[in-house]
Every structure is written in C-alpha cells, then in structure tokens.
C-alpha cells in the first residue's frame, strides 16, 4: 500500500439541514433544491459558484446527479452521484476532498436528500437490490429490521451485551434530540419504555428502529484558503477511511469493515484512538452504534459492556454521542442519514450547535455505514474532523 496521504488543506463548511418531515408531497428534487439554496445562503455566494456537486439519494429517479445540474442552473466541473445509503456521506466527502485538494474543483456542494411518502418505504424495499429481490424480500424480511434482527441476535450471543446496554445509547440520544428543533421525536424516552416497546423482529423492538422521513443534509467541501476568503467558519478533515464488503467470509456480521482500516484512521488523524470530544456514529440501530465503538477503537476488544456502562452519552456527558439525537430520534431521511452526523459534527466544531453545543468541542469522530444488500451492511467509513 502506498504511503498515506493526508487531507491537508481540505475543510468543510456551511452545515445545512432542511428540516425533516415524516411525509412530504414534494419530490426529492425539491429537497435537493432547498439544500442547495441553504448552502448558497450560508456561503454568501450564488449557487452558480459551486463548481462541484455531489448528490446522495435513493429516490431521485428518473434523474441521476447530472440532470440536477441543468435543473438547478449549475455548471460544475466535478460531479458525483453516490446512492450508497448510510455510507454515502463519508464516501462523498472523501471523493470531494481529493477533488478540491487536487484543484479539480474549488467548492463542492455535497447534498444528501430523500423524500418520503406513505408507500415509498415499502416501494424502495421492493427494489433495493438484486440480492434482496431474489433472497431477502420473498422471505417476509423486506426492510432492514429482520436482517438486522438476525445480526443482533448473533451479536448479543457473541458479545454478551443485552438490550439494556443498547437501550442506554437510545435513551441518551433521545435526551440529546430534545435539544434539537429539527428532531422529529419530541418526547423523552426512558429505558423502561425502550425495553418494553413493541417487538418488531426480536431482539429488535420499536425504539431500536429509525423512522423513515423526508429531509436533506448538506455541506461544502473546499480548500482552507477558499473558506478563509469567503469568511466561512470551517473544520479540517484530518482522516478518512472507507471499505466495502470488508469481511466477506464472516458468516454473520459480528464486526464491520472499520476493523480493517481503524489503524489507518487514527494514524492519519495523528491522535490516539478515541481521543475525540464527541462521536457521531451511524445509528440505524443502537447495537450498530455499539459495534462501532469497538470497531473504531474507542474501547479495547471485548471491553464494550464496560465502555457503555462507564460513559454518559448525552451532550453534557463524558462522551457526547449522536448529539443531534441521531437518526433514532431525528428520523432517517434516506441517504441523508449518512450525512446527519457529518453536518452535526460540523455544527459542533464551529460552535454553531446552539442549545446542544458540546462545550469546548475540538475534535470529532464521524462514521458511516450502509447498504444491507443481503445479510450484512456492506459499506463502512469514518472520518476525523478538527476545529480550525
């Protein structure tokens, strides 16, 4: 493997969230349009100045990213389409970062958006992937819940973790969400409520599941000098990893692809594993967040139960985690879920997180995870961001 090349000079700016809705009569194109408008307003430039566009979405059909250039009057020289679900945000950022670093673009608008209608979740399940069509959906396992229940069952057996361990994560996220006006979940959640919630596919219960919704997340990727010239608050990208189908020989997904690249991540970041002020994991299920704590080196192998017991994951706690409330409490706006943590970390590290600001936040770990094509999530990624 070639020597690691860092992301020197690459920064992120202008966190944009188009407020989520459970259902929307508007198309995904509308949500992308609102996100671009938010980026332009936040950057104080015309959207025509964006010479790079990266779009992550499942529900853009019949468009791909290229049609959106004409739709929104852009003339980019860098264009990317990453319909990669929960890992799309990290993948989009990595690619955009190299493009601006190399000078192929100056200012890349990274937008993740999906709309939601009462039937759209089921319809998207039907057409999710070839393997799913042939070997998952016909088993009554449409949607990730059943597939993740099978993983969770095996993971609990192997790790010795209990639903109460995962519940602690979900309950802390709900507490965080109550400080986030964008979060769709507005009521407090207790551990008892979590434990006694309706079974969906045991051991997955209602409060293990995200609520599908419509929404968009967006940010700009640019070089530090460009951000400074525009007078934009920014954060630095110091490390990034990405891996797909990381452990094809594992019979059940008891670890994610992060394990293969975690050493690279912390070496690039130049800090000890876990030396961060806050963590945003990809929380399609609380147990997947728990798995990431271990896989991303926040705790030693086998030390997860102790790690969870030893930390307070709320905004004022010892390890603020998913400070927006995460997808579990904000909602899962399709592919935008993969950018929720990035945008939230960008807010936190630029001091723009308002009522949920983590005091003195300087460094954040953000992860992505996506695409349960058949029996496991295929994509894993993570980045480390540092305040300027």
């Amino acid at each position, binding site marked *: 493997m070639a020597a690691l090349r860092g992301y020197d000079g690459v920064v992120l700016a202008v966190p944009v969230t188009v407020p989520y809705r459970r259902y929307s009569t508007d198309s995904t194109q509308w949500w992308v349009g609102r996100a671009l408008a938010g980026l332009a307003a936040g950057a104080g430039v015309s959207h025509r100045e964006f010479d790079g566009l990266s779009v992550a979405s499942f529900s853009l059909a019949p468009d791909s990213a290229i049609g959106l250039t004409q739709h929104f009057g852009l003339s980019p020289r860098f264009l990317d389409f990453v319909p990669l679900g929960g890992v799309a945000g990290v993948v989009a950022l990595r690619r955009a970062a190299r493009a601006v670093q190399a000078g192929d673009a100056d200012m890349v608008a990274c937008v993740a958006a999906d709309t939601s209608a009462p039937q759209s979740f*089921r319809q998207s399940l039907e057409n999710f992937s*070839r393997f799913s069509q042939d*070997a998952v959906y*016909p*088993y009554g*396992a449409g*949607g990730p819940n059943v597939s993740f229940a*099978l993983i969770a069952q095996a993971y609990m057996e192997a790790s010795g973790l209990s639903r109460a361990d995962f519940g602690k994560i979900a309950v802390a996220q709900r507490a965080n969400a109550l400080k986030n006006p964008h979060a769709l979940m507005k009521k407090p959640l207790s551990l008892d409520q979590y434990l006694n919630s309706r079974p969906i596919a*045991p051991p997955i219960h209602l409060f293990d599941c995200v609520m599908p919704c419509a929404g968009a997340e967006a940010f700009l990727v640019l070089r530090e000098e460009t951000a400074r010239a525009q007078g934009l608050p920014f954060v630095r990208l110091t490390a990034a990893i990405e891996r797909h189908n990381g452990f094809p020989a594992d019979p059940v997904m008891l670890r994610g692809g992060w394990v293969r690249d975690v050493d690279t991540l912390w070496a690039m970041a130049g800090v000890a594993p876990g030396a961060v002020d806050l963590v945003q994991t990809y929380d399609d299920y609380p147990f997947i967040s728990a798995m990431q704590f271990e896989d991303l080196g926040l705790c030693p192998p086998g030390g997860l139960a102790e790690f969870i017991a030893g930390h307070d994951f709320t905004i004022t706690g010892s390890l603020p985690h998913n400070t927006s409330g995460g997808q579990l409490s904000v909602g899962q706006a399709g592919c935008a879920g993969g950018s929720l943590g990035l945008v939230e970390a960008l807010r936190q590290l630029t001091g723009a997180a308002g009522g949920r600001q983590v005091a003195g936040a300087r460094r954040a770990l953000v992860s992505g995870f996506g695409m349960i094509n058949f029996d496991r999530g295929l994509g894993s990624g993570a980045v480390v961001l540092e305040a300027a």
Partner: protein
Amino acid sequence: MTQERPRKNPLHRTRQPLLPPGGRSRKAHLLTAAAAEGRFALPRCGACGTYSWPMVEACPDCLSADITAAEAPSGAVLLSQTSAEVPADPYFRERAPWRVGLVQMDCGPVALVHLHPEPQAGERLRLTLMLDRAGQGVLHAGPENGGDMSTDKQWQEMTADPRGRRVLITDARHVAALPLARKLAAEGAAGIFMGLPESWKPLENRAAFEAVQGLRFVPLDLASDRSVEDLARAIGGKVEILINTADHPRPGGLMAPAAVTHTRACMETVAFGLMRLARSFGPALAGRGADGGEGAPGAVAWVNVLSVFARATSPEMAGYAAAHTAALSLSHSLRAQLGGGGVRLMTVLTGPTEDDWFQLAPQPKVTGKALADAVVGGLMKGLEEVVVGDVARDLMARLAENPKAVERDLAAGRL
C-alpha cells in the same frame, strides 16, 4: 401429531388472496425450475465448484460465468433466528409473525430461510428448495430429522396438503381414481367429490369407491358444457383441490380409419374438457386461494394428470398425443391464471398406465396406486412438475439429453 384444521367461520368474508413478493432475476428461475420438481439445487460454479447464494451471474471466487443450479447437500446449521412481527409486505403482514433464520449451509453459503417453529440457533437443519405461494423458489429449513410439518404453518402455506380440504376427482373411470380417493382419505381430506361420466354405464368397482370415507359421486362429463357448468354451480365453491383424471386413450396412428373420430373424442375430453373445467371451476378456486384465514383450508391446487406423450409423440398414439400436448399447453395458461390466487397447478406426466387401453404398451406400466401416490406426494411437497413411472422418467431424461434421438426412437416403436 396431525391436528384437525379449523373450518372457516361462514359468517366471515372470503379473504382476498395476496401473494408474497414474486420479483426475481431471470437467472434465479434456475432455482424455480428445481423447486418445481422437488430437487434441492443451489447455484454452483462449473469452473471451481464453489456454491453461492443468492443466485449470481459470475462466481465470486473465480469470476467464471459458468453458473448452474446444481444438486447440493441440503444440510445446514442455524446461525440466528427471529420472527417478523410487523412485516412491510401485505402478504406477510397478514400472516405475521413469520419465522425466518440465517443459516450456514454445509456447502458454504449463508442464506435467509423460512424457518420451521422448532429449530434453535446452533441446531442442524435440513433445507428444502420449494415454491412459495407466488410460485417462486424459496428456501425452507426444518429440523434435520424431518420434524412435524403439520405444525409449520409456513410449510403448510407453501404446500397443498389435502388434510381438511375437499377434493374433486374428475373421472372415476381412470385407473388412478380409486387409489387416489383412498390415499386422499387416508391423508385426512375432508371430502371427495368423485366425478362420474356417463353415469348410466356400470362402474365395476363402485362398492370399493363407496367404502371410501367422505366420498360422494357427482355426475360429470367433461365433454359436455352443461354437465361441467351444472357441477360447478353445485360444488364449485367447495373444491379446494381439483384433480383432473379425465382421459380417452385410443390406440392408432394418423392413418388408422377412425383416427379423426378418436382424436376428436379425445380432444373433447382431454383438451376442451380441461378448458370447460378451467372456465367453470378456475375462477372459484383462484378466488378462494386465501379463504378461511390462517390454517384453515383455502383452495390450493389443481392437478392435471397427463400422458408423457404430451412431451414426446408416439406415432402409434398420434391423436392421443396431440390432445395431451394441447392439454399441457392449456395447463401452462391455466397455471398463470390460477397463480394470481396463489393456487398451484401441478402437472403429472405419466407413462402408459396399467389398464386395458394401454394393452399393447410394454412393461413397466404405471399402476393406479403408483400414480395416486405420486399425485398426493406431489401435493404434500407443493410441487408443480411430477413425472411418474420408469418409462416416463426415462423419456424425460432422454428428451433433456437429445430430443431428436427420442423422435427417432419413438418412430421406430422403441418406447
């Protein structure tokens, strides 16, 4: 222990049939073909021998495109299990909870399977490739030692067990009719309507028929529009399995003096008779595919007992083969139409049977009992294609190998 099936509450509406998701890649239908015949097959690479799951277009180990559905060991271990309590799909939602498992097959791949109620994680399993209610191939896992399938509502949903169901056998004069009635009664059929054509003609073993529990003769002449319609009006809504045994075998080649007369009569019964049945009984069966709710006996299957000469023409039985070929073709159309109601069409291709009309056919011929066992066995496994008897199986194997050679063999009178 076999449980009695609950009868449908007559105050309840007839539940509309829903189907499980039926979308499949074209290549995945290699597995559908195996499931239809009750073979256990998995995608395997012809170059390196690696088994895969799901169906792939190239081997993930060596990228060879030589992928077939090949015979495979059916053992597996259960890695993990759950039950879908609130599935998104309407078919499964209506039948929830639906138990599924993640299994590691002895030959390598991991798969999601429909899971029998008994097995727990770590236990050994036996896999079956079967057709689901949409007629598409799926994997089912049951206990390694077989287990009690009558307690597995998911297995029951995908098979056509006669238990608690009412069966119409269209022609009592077929050599398999009596053994079929006996076998179905033994398997717990709730009633047997036995069609009797030309009821003024004596039926030699009438007393033996009448000794079968739950059997009732009904007048039925497939060559008559009126007869079929009358019977459908009387019992069309009470038939959950229809077994069409009507036949009209007459020897003679194309140049026999009575060839046209015999062929017309055979067509009238075997081909047009099937059309009459389809028109009168088809909609009632297809509409009752999910009748009676969970565990209660809705309509499940239609069986056409046909001659293997539908696939390979014996010139000595020219008109007979033509009529059966026509009926086989009609069977495929009927399958598509019944499929919308989740009702399975099973085609049974038999070699010459042990009766007077096949006097000149060489042994081994198929006995009525062997044919009946094959029909009921096929229903209980939920098959779609059944071939009965050594002659028929041999012909089908030869056809798959070299159809031109079969044509020459049959031309020379070599069955």
